[in-house]
């Protein structure tokens, strides 16, 4: 297995180098940063699925949360907002939300004061409706007010981006806790559908809450944690070189973050916690019978994985310097990562990372590659008198979707455990 791992990673180096020569240093450094961010996300999914057997199809939602968090934290402060009535109105809305939550929780525990059965259900429904009305009554005017201002949204906090990444993790943990509490009892394919549904809800919210995220108007430019190309240019570096230096700088940071997290995860996996997780995954009935609190452990895994996903999502948004909730697609964000894990190897951290790097490279390269193929065919068909292929640009980018589907199918048929499958430890 070690030979295989080393061999496959060596192949990866060769591939990246090869593509690098074709596309140039600036482009390959961009690809590298994004690949490593995706590798981190794949690692997160590996924890949920590979270790925990949890079927999370709402990865997109967590990426969006991470991106949102880093935007909120690292974007410069909007003084106009803080000077206006905005914070006051939002404060009232927050109060309304808390009151609403209080009502709901109160209804939930109303059985303590003797209200049970049908009456309690009615009470719960009323509490949800009341909470919703109260919240909407405060948030609607607040949102309208903020969106009417010049900036159109609350602005950021002006803090360091890495703090934003961390905040993304924190926010994701909170949301994962709620989602986990609700959904983890469901059987696997139901869990998949539920998580897709929830991530779509998250997407709808972030896309439309203009006062909080600027929605489809997008937020940019989001600051970098390391010097920007512009900073290098200012100190006299050539434009092309500046991009390479800047991106390499970012890459170093990302690799450090990834390495740290990887190390932590590997340690956890090898230790008693990891063994317990695998025991639960393989036979949760038996594990439960042994006294392990299965639900609590599964929740832990779910949260842990989501944190990694959100950090990865935050890194991607920081790097791209723009937060566009409308640009998130289930195909790109959720399915792609599943392919990474299936091809790379679920249950194996090296496999997850390998899958992340390889598939992202393939994904990004397939567009120019498809264009190349189409152009070649087009020239041939024009020469043959059949005319050129129309719309090569948009068609080529659709090739990626087709290729992804083919990769999933082939991988499921021929390498269902992945290229670097889980290593079963045998007790001696």
């Amino acid at each position: 297995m070690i030979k295989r791992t080393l061999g496959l990673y060596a192949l990866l180096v060769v591939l990246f180098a090869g593509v690098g020569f074709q596309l140039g240093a600036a482009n390959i450094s961009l690809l590298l940063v994004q690949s490593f961010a995706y590798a981190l996300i794949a690692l997160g999914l590996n924890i949920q699925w590979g270790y925990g057997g949890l079927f999370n199809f709402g990865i997109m939602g967590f990426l969006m949360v991470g991106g949102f968090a880093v935007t909120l934290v690292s974007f410069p402060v909007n003084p106009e907002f803080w000077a206006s009535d905005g914070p006051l109105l939002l404060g009232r809305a927050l109060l309304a939300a808390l009151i609403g939550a209080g009502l709901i929780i109160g209804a939930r525990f109303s059985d303590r004061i003797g209200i049970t059965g049908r009456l309690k259900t009615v009470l719960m429904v009323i509490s949800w409706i009341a909470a919703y009305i109260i919240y909407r009554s405060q948030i609607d005017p607040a949102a309208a007010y903020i969106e009417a201002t010049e900036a159109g949204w609350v602005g950021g906090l002006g803090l360091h981006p890495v703090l934003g990444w961390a905040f993304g993790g924190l926010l994701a943990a909170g949301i994962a806790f709620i989602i986990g509490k609700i959904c983890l009892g469901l059987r696997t394919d139901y869990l998949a559908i539920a998580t897709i549904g929830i991530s779509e809800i998250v997407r709808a919210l972030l896309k439309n809450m203009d006062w909080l995220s600027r929605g489809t108007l997008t937020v940019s430019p989001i600051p970098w944690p390391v010097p920007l190309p512009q900073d290098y240019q200012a100190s006299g570096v050539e434009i092309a070189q500046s991009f390479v230096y800047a991106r390499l700088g970012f890459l170093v940071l990302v690799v450090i973050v990834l390495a740290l997290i990887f190390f932590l995860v590997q340690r956890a996996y090898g230790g008693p916690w990891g063994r317990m997780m695998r025991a639960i995954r393989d036979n949760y009935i038996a594990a439960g019978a042994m006294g392990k609190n299965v639900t609590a452990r599964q929740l832990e895994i779910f949260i842990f994985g989501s944190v990694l996903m959100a950090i990865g999502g935050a890194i991607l948004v920081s790097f791209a310097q723009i937060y566009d909730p409308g640009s998130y697609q289930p195909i790109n964000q959720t399915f792609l990562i599943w392919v990474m894990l299936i091809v790379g190897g679920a249950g194996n951290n090296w496999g997850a990372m390998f899958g992340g790097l390889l598939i992202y490279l393939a994904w990004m390269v397939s567009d120019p590659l498809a264009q190349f193929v189409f152009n070649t065919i087009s020239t041939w068909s024009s020469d043959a008198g059949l005319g050129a292929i129309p719309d090569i640009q948009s068609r080529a980018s659709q090739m990626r979707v087709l290729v992804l589907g083919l990769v999933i199918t082939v991988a499921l048929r021929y390498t269902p455990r992945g290229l670097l499958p889980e290593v079963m430890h045998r007790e001696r």
Partner: protein
Amino acid sequence: MNEFIFFINNVVVSGLVLGSVYALGGIGITLVFGILRFAHFAHGDMMTMGAFVTFLLAAMLTATGIVLPIPLAIIVLPFAMLITAGLALGIDRGFYQPLRARGARPVTLLIGSIGVTLIIQGLIRLVFGTGTYSFFDEAPKVLYRVPVPLFDAQRTINFTQPQVLMVFATILVVVVLHLFLTRSKFGKAMRAMADNADLAQVSGINTKLVIRVTWIIAGSLACLAGTMLALDVTLKPDLAFNIVLPLFAAAIVGGLGQAYGAIAGGFLIGFAEVCAVFNWAILLRPFKDRFPEWFEIPNNLAIVPTEYKLTVAFVILVITLLVRPTGIFKGASS
């Protein structure tokens, strides 16, 4: 009265139309789940594929110069349904059957169906590009306006010919399916297999044949649903991908594996969506004079803003999964 007609147009008619789409699509999903025991994510793209097949056939027919009072799409629909059924069989043969033969879990089949979704979508986009197509380039859509001779109403109840056809088709499918499942020997065999696949095999039921018939039905219904949807809106490559989740919501809410459940679920979610985004304040306006002076009717009494229309389906889905995962008609559970 005008406001009431507005309500009829925007809630009753829209709800019926949307409900029919969800119901037709949901039946396919629930049948496949009941008999093959996995969530067939690719059903949405099967619907799109079916719609494109109809489009191709209709285009070929137009090229021969025939003009008819009803849209050509309807004429070619039976053939398109056959072709799509064949394609569905091929997809099962090529993609799902090998996985089943290896004893794949439902989760693996779900991932496999996602692969199929992407392949179908990719192929459609590759061949047809990403633009929109219309069935009505040659002959425009027929619009019906029904005047309401009551209380000096000026508005009319509006609906289009494709919408009428869609509701009609749904009713037809429901009746035929009901008769098939309860009266015919093969229909009962399908129900038996959905109930207990092992026992069905032990009883001598040819399970491979049942699976094939399931795909034929699912494929035909997908083509019907997809074409109807395309006739109502427009034809584009991601036509049905966006409604895959509401379709699953419809199937799950109604009870997975129960055909009637999918129909009920479909209409429930369809009406829920249109009711949630409707501005109920409009209905209060005629009664303005009945309210005391200090009471001002709010401008907008929609339960959710229009952007969140699809979200309503997801919320209903999540609530169902939590409160009553077996759905209305008690289908498969957790």
